[in-house]
């Protein structure tokens, strides 16, 4: 089973960090095959950007993105650009406050107020971690414990608590609202 996740948006939204945390949670702590890559542009903030994560049981899985099983779109532009490339049974996870027009693949769109959840957790910038945890909860590629362990390893100290809290609340939101399970 190969699961492909794409975090798409603008530079500065922490998309690559989101990819790294998910890949580390699933690959290092979960023991799965995990591969992470990114659209690479020179180091300028604010341009279009995306990061891909591939998680699989097979050691020879194709490591780069082809058509995502889950797209996390954090800007309107990235939603418009990538929503059509999502696999037939895939999901488009998006924050309605960032992506007002969600007509493409409307049947596959899963709204999540990531920014609002992150703000409540202590830092609006941690919306990326809300999404990481939600993706993990929706797909089962990583546990919350492993996501938080990866956050511990990869996020600078002063933002650690907010990011951990954001992940926890993102996980709970996905479990409760999106999967209809009690956390």
């Amino acid at each position, binding site marked *: 089973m190969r699961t492909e996740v794409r975090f798409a948006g603008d530079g500065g939204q922490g998309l690559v*960090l989101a*990819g*790294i945390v998910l*890949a*580390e949670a*699933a*690959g*290092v702590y979960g*023991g*799965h*095959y*995990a*591969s*992470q*890559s*990114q659209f*690479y542009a*020179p180091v300028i903030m604010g341009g279009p950007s995306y990061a891909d994560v591939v998680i699989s049981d097979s050691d*020879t*899985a*194709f*490591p*780069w993105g*082809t058509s995502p099983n889950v797209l996390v779109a954090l800007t309107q532009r990235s939603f418009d650009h990538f929503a059509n490339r999502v696999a037939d049974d895939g999901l488009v996870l998006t924050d309605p406050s960032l992506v007002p027009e969600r007509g493409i693949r409307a049947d596959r769109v899963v709204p999540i107020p990531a920014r609002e959840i992150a703000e409540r957790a202590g830092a609006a910038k941690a919306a990326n971690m809300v999404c990481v945890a939600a993706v993990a909860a929706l797909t089962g590629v990583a546990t919350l414990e492993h996501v938080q362990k990866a956050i*511990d*390893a*990869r996020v600078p100290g002063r933002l650690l608590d907010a990011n951990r809290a954001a992940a926890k609340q993102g996980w709970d939101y996905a479990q409760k609202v999106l999967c209809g399970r009690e956390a």
Partner: protein
Amino acid sequence: MSNKHAQSRRVLLLGNEACAEGAIAAGVRFYAGYPITPATEIFERFAYRLPALGGVCVQMEDECGSMHALLGAAAAGQRVATATSGPGFNLVQEGIASLASAELPAVIINVQRIGPSTGSIHGAQMDVMQAQWGFNGNHQTIALAPSSVSECFWTTVRAVELAETLRMPVLVMSEMHVGLMRQAVELPDYDEVRIEGRPRPTCAPSDYRTYLCKRLEDVPPLADIGSGYRNVFQVTTHGSETAGGGGMVWDYKEADWHLRHLAAKVLHRRHEIEWVEPFATEDAEVVIVAYGSCVSAALAAMKAARQDGRRVGVLKLVSLWPFPEDAVRRHAAKAELVLVPELNLGQMVREVERVLGPSGIPVHPINRVDSYYMWPDDILGVLNAMAGR
């Protein structure tokens, strides 16, 4: 963005970081470099790691300077490495030539990007012919191409060993797609990574000559400058017994020895250097010969085709130079068609054609030069088209 949990041996590592770690595991303690995308993470990793290991990581004025700093450090006994990409790979050619001619070991990692010239920073396999023919004169290079993060580590380890044991520059031909990909990998205990070093002289210093050996294919023992043995390293043609002042008398026999020796010491060991991995080639009607990032697409295409009941196999080439021609011949022997996917407009395919030409097996190139990696569909599309003919 490095992982703070250093105790874990299963780590999420960039291909570029894995190249640096492989070199460090193999004892490289000297790095000279010049920043260039997409190879800079290798430099940064060395800059972070080597000081704590008592090693040296230094930024030079350009790639040419890096290469010649490596030459000096290698002559003084260090295991040395540098990394670069496209435009920088042009500039290191002079230094690779110097090391090859002077017979000094070094590892050069080229994280390939699109060219010619500045081109773009995106992925490509466009320098694989340059790896063999990029610098002047007759020579045989050794080049290894990693297809995954784990292979970035192990090809670099092997490159250090080949460089040291054969006293020559060895190339790791990585790519942006591989170098800037992170994968979860198991790292070995570095104390367990044991490689052979350079051959050492057993003679008295007075009997030592920098290039003294009996047969053309021998690797002359190498003493470090400063160890009491007198060395005269020459980028000029030289004979085996040259002892300095060798340039005093011109000797055409020495030139002949020098050129034949540089080729023979590699080609004599071509089967030890050969590094390939076959996947289901035994019964394959179609064999995909792939290297680097194209290996993943080849394997995915093979899997899909096998599910359709089609006999497709893959021959992964890790060593590109000397070209593993016996392996290609062996694994393609029963094939009716050979496919060669590459992120260029047909470079290594020429070698495959050269090797398989006499057997009459058709060789078909699949090329992408739009900065993307090869997709499984690119290969499946050709397979389907071929099946339908």
